[in-house]
């Protein structure tokens, strides 16, 4: 079995990465997961978090604010709502998202409030990880 697979990270505005990788760690909405070559085909939604890509012993990290991933045996494609490389630019954008999520959580009622609050925690967690 091949030990690398094609990995693409695209956001609506641009394509951020396209390379051969050995493993991708994704912040799936149902929990973190790692995709490696030969993974069973699956589609999962993502929550805000850090995406870790391992290629040739190098490790790349991206911050994503949500979206979904299409994983198959030959590759993984992440369609992120917004994605950034780790850095001050990304931090500012994530902070803006966090402020929005906070406002949404305060406005939400009933069961929606729980999901909205969870989203706020995810963003806070993501910001901590971006330091």
């Amino acid at each position, binding site marked *: 079995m091949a030990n690398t697979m094609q990995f693409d990270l695209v*956001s*609506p*505005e641009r*394509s951020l990465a396209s390379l051969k990788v050995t493993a991708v760690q994704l912040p799936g909405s149902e929990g973190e997961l790692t995709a490696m070559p030969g993974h069973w085909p699956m*589609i999962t939604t993502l929550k805000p978090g850090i995406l870790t890509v391992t290629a040739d012993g190098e490790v790349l990290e991206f911050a994503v604010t949500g979206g979904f991933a299409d994983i198959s045996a030959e590759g993984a494609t992440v*369609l992120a*709502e917004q994605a950034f490389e780790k850095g001050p630019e990304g931090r500012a954008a994530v902070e803006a998202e966090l402020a929005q999520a906070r406002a949404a959580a305060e406005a939400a009622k009933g069961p929606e409030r729980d999901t909205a609050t969870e989203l706020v925690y995810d963003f806070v967690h993501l910001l901590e990880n971006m330091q």
Partner: protein
Amino acid sequence: MPSLKDLKNRISSVKSTRKITKAMQMVAAAKLRRAQESAEAARPYTERFNAVLGQLAASVGGADNAPLLLRGTGKDDVQLLVVMTSERGLCGGFNSSIVKLARTRIEALKIAGKTVKILTVGKKGREQLRRDYGDMMIGHIDMSEVKKLGYGNAAAIAKDLLGRFDAGEFDVATIFYSEFKSVISQKPTAQQIIPASYDAPEEGAVSTIYDYEPSEEAILADLLPRGVATQLFAALLENAASEQGARMSAMDNATRNAGDMIDKLSIEYNRTRQAVITSELIEIISGAEAL
């Protein structure tokens, strides 16, 4: 017959007009390149997104409990037309051709007895439609403050649309925009976005069985609103490129016309100047003879 001074003034005013149109053409050319680049950059996302949604829609779409965004409300009585035009004029027939297509559709729907609602994006379309269909307009989205189109703009429009859809304000939404074919050719296009129709994967293609996390339905429910935003974003980008293309060729024409006009006026100016000299000479000569 205009005097020499009048002609001189007219020539200089046409010359400065030509300078302006020439500059606008260059600016449009530069902006066009940028617009094309961002349209290009957005393509991979849209393609993959549609592929995944197509697959999902094919497996869930037939079910009775499929999301409303995919299945529709089962009616088509209230039609929402989203007319996307530019914020600025001086771009040839760009806005008029989009509005014309929308008008034809509005008239056809009216004859069919449907209720029509109009949402405009961009100032120019609103101005043109307001006179005849002012009572059908339910909203306007101002893009004049937008310096660089981002996904956020499309997401905001999508949010507005989805809010109205959830409130039951319309059954079918169609967007009107201009597809960018080339610098000299832009095609006004109508595209239905709610309920969405996605191409199912080709027959005979190896369809892999996917695991879905969370469930298939949950993912579809999550993706469909995003699909609306993605389609709007693609349309906005196409529109931006078309606008600049149309402006570029319109300004190219204007520059050429101004050049022709300057030539004509210069000939007239020279003729008048010669006539003036000749008549002055005749006056001097006849004056000298009279002595």
